[in-house]
């Protein structure tokens, strides 16, 4: 059991893996900017300005304002999750990038950690693209909202690590569809994103908070963007730190078990 949470052997060389992924990202910049730019905008128009017309207020705020933080949160989740499932799997299995890197002084722990930090960075990038768009529509209160950017790193890291656990155990690339459909899609809809958690029965609310990482992200982002910051946020952030630490260790150890033969 302990071997699944053993401390990794990591040096600052992790940054070299991160830089490699950054360089690929920069080489294909235009196509990378499109999804985080277009997707949330579409949701904002369809749900916020479209469907929102039929909804007066949720928890005392207009519907667009209610879903705006969710759009950022969801985008962070998707960016990090897909980067470290399909993205990492392609690098690991098809491009053999990991094999190429571990022939250098870097070890597998550092390769995986670099991937995770890059996944987290994708979350930050997405948040940085969407936040200004939402701000144009007056959906973010400043300066509090700026905290969303560094927070996106923690949120992204959490989902990168969760994703990497699946990448480590998936028998093939198609099977990554399972966590995507059975975990990420429900989370996308039921984490207090498009309707408040308070609509759910009280027990279900607690269960949601206990097991749905996205629910915590949405609460924190919503509070930062509305400018009303309460002490209870520390609980959400503490939950995220704890969960991230566990899945960080687990994902690296699972990957080592997969790759060191």
């Amino acid at each position, binding site marked *: 059991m302990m071997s699944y949470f053993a401390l990794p052997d990591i040096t600052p*060389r992790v940054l*070299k893996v991160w*830089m*490699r992924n950054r*360089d*690929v990202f920069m*080489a*294909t910049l235009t196509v990378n900017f499109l999804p985080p730019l277009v997707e949330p905008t579409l949701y904002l128009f369809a749900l916020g300005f479209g469907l929102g017309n039929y909804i007066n207020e949720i928890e005392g705020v207009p519907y667009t304002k209610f879903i705006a933080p969710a759009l950022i949160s969801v985008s962070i989740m998707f960016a990090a999750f897909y980067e470290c499932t399909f993205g990492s799997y392609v690098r690991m299995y098809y*491009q*053999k*990038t990991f*094999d*190429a*890197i*571990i*022939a*250098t*002084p*870097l*070890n597998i722990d550092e390769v995986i950690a670099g991937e995770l930090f890059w996944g987290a960075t994708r979350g930050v990038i997405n948040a940085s693209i969407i936040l200004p768009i939402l701000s144009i529509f007056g959906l973010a209160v400043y300066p509090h909202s700026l905290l969303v950017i560094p927070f996106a790193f923690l949120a992204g890291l959490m989902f990168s690590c969760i994703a990497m656990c699946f990448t480590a155990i998936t028998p093939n690339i198609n099977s990554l569809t399972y966590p995507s459909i059975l975990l990420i899609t429900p989370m996308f809809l039921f984490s207090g994103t498009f309707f408040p958690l308070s609509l759910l029965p009280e027990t279900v609310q607690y269960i949601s908070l206990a097991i749905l990482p996205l629910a915590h992200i949405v609460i924190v982002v919503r509070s930062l963007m509305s400018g009303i910051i309460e002490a209870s946020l520390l609980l959400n952030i503490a939950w995220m730190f704890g969960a991230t630490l566990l899945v960080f260790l687990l994902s690296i150890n699972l990957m080592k078990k997969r790759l*060191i*033969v």
Partner: protein
Amino acid sequence: MAVDDVSFEVNKGELFGFLGPNGAGKTTAMRIIQCVSPPGGGSLKVFDMDVTRDQRKIKNLMGVVPQENNLDIDFSVYKNLYVYSRYFDIPKRKAEQKIDELLDFVQLNEKKDTMTDSLSGGMKRRLVLARALVNEPRLLILDEPTVGLDPQSRHVMWDKLRSLKKQGVTIVMTTHYLEEAAQLCDRLVIMDYGNILVEGSPSSIIREHIGTDIVEAENTPEVIACLENSNARYEKTGDMVQIYTNDPHDITEHLFSECRLGKITARAATLEDVFLKLTGRKLRE
């Protein structure tokens, strides 16, 4: 397939080959030398350092050409080398200088800005070789470096390896091409089922296991009976029989006069003959 009983020593500046059928344990042996797979038991030292303890130091002094080209398809030729040199903490200026030098060495200077996807097989292989050299390794590991290359590309690769050897780089390689091994390797081992069957220089291995020449005749009961009578060393391979000898004239004369043979051919013995003799002719899949 793991390795079972493998002990070997590679001398400094030597070109050392690992041969064996698929599944013999060559790649596993390479992975252990590369500090990627841990040795299940026993120990291995590279530059007097333990592969289980000083991995970073060893890998810093080593270059690897893997069986599959794992180039970054999203990068140009130049960028591939540059990104790789970063993993070794090579300062930018020094890396740029080294990359220019290496692109000359592997004759890819004109392809500097080409994306690796559009390179030919031979070019990709040479780029992987250049990449393995960015850290000026003292030991170069190559896992089937010429697989799938046309004869021209293969010869260029051989030239490069010989010239690296001349520069004092120790080279360890695996190959399925026995002619290549005979041409390049100072010493080699033939492995099968995780064990080393023979070790030595190509010529000494051939001499020891076959002799200088092979005489091939048709596999008929008369020929076999005749060979039995004359105490010849031979092996049946389908409808042919191969006779191992150091004196092909003598044996051909003998066969002609005593055994009433029709067709016979004599040729020099090769590493391939030893290989098939030791590992058998059964398919490994």
